[in-house]
């Protein structure tokens, strides 16, 4: 592989640009294809498919055996609420490969001392996300259980079809949340996508354990996405702890 190609590939990855490194397994030659680059013929079809599935693999195209290594942007996690759970969740999620941002307008919570190595924004979510709107590659984790802070990012994430949307709060809290979001014009399918109570049911008790339950649920949503058309509104599992 040419060093210049490696440098270009790494630059594309840093800029959150989807890219494919193509290697000709016959002669060892390689080239970089950025998403949107025009590619024709058999290869064009294979490249389009690879970008869509985000799966790397060997393809036969135009009589050659080629390896397509697909690089798609790393997923983001936006955590609303600089609370105790977030202090555990943020570093865990970074370790798992997520670009993490923690947002909380309450300056007593959002202090660098509590979040030393994390992208922390002490502002309202609508302002803190201006430079980085929630997209389909984003997981939204809302853990303040304060409607003033949580509702806007939840709505924004549901409208953007974020791959994961989770919200902390008891069933009663969530019931009221559902009423507010319905009144705000979101439909039942959208609201049904909210993971609430948040996190996998593993009996988590401490903030760090709850962080593990949330991160595991986010990873499941990322790696085993369900067909949105078949998705049912989630009903909390019986006996799951109320958060």
């Amino acid at each position, binding site marked *: 592989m040419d060093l210049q190609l490696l440098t270009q590939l790494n630059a594309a990855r840093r800029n959150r640009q989807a890219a494919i490194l193509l290697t000709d397994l016959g002669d060892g030659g390689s080239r970089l294809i950025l998403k949107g680059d025009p590619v024709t013929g058999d290869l064009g079809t294979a490249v389009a498919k690879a970008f869509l599935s985000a799966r790397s*693999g060997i393809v036969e195209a135009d009589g050659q055996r080629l390896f397509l290594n697909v690089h798609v942007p790393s997923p983001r996690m936006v955590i609303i609420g600089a609370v105790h759970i977030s202090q555990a969740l943020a570093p865990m999620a*970074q370790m798992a*490969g997520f670009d993490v941002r923690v947002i909380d307008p309450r300056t007593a919570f959002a202090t660098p001392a509590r979040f030393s*190595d994390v992208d922390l924004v002490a502002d309202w979510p609508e302002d803190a996300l201006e430079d980085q709107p929630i997209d389909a590659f984003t997981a939204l984790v809302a853990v303040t259980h304060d409607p003033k802070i949580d509702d806007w990012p939840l709505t924004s994430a549901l409208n953007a079809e974020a791959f994961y949307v989770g919200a902390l709060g008891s069933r009663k809290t969530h019931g009221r949340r559902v009423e507010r979001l319905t009144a705000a014009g979101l439909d039942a399918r959208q609201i049904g996508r909210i993971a609430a109570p948040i996190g996998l049911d593993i009996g988590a008790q401490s903030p760090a354990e709850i962080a593990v339950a949330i991160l595991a649920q986010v990873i499941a949503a990322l790696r085993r996405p369900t067909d949105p058309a078949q998705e049912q509104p989630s009903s909390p599992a019986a006996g799951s702890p109320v958060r």
Partner: protein
Amino acid sequence: MTTPIPGQTLDDQLDPLTLAERWMADGRKVAVATVIETWGSAPRPVGSHLVIDADGNFSGSVSGGCVEGAVISEAAEVISSGEPKMLEFGVADETAWQVGLSCGGKIQVYLERIV
């Protein structure tokens, strides 16, 4: 694809391809191993990288630690010859335990030098 964590500068916190670029900038000779095909249960998905320098330093993984040793020794030859190599690992018989995948899968690894 991992975000470097501020305050943690260990090489292992960088993803293999970023580290490979840095090693090249330091004037080191570097080979990249890539999982290009898997059969059965394989610990690392297609596209995973292991980078190796001429002194045998390495980062990343192409299996769960089962065949890295063999890939690293092959890398020395690829670095000196500059010729890419295709390596295949799997459990075929008992002797394969030495450099095989105990999980019973099979993987194909493409090993090339960065020039």
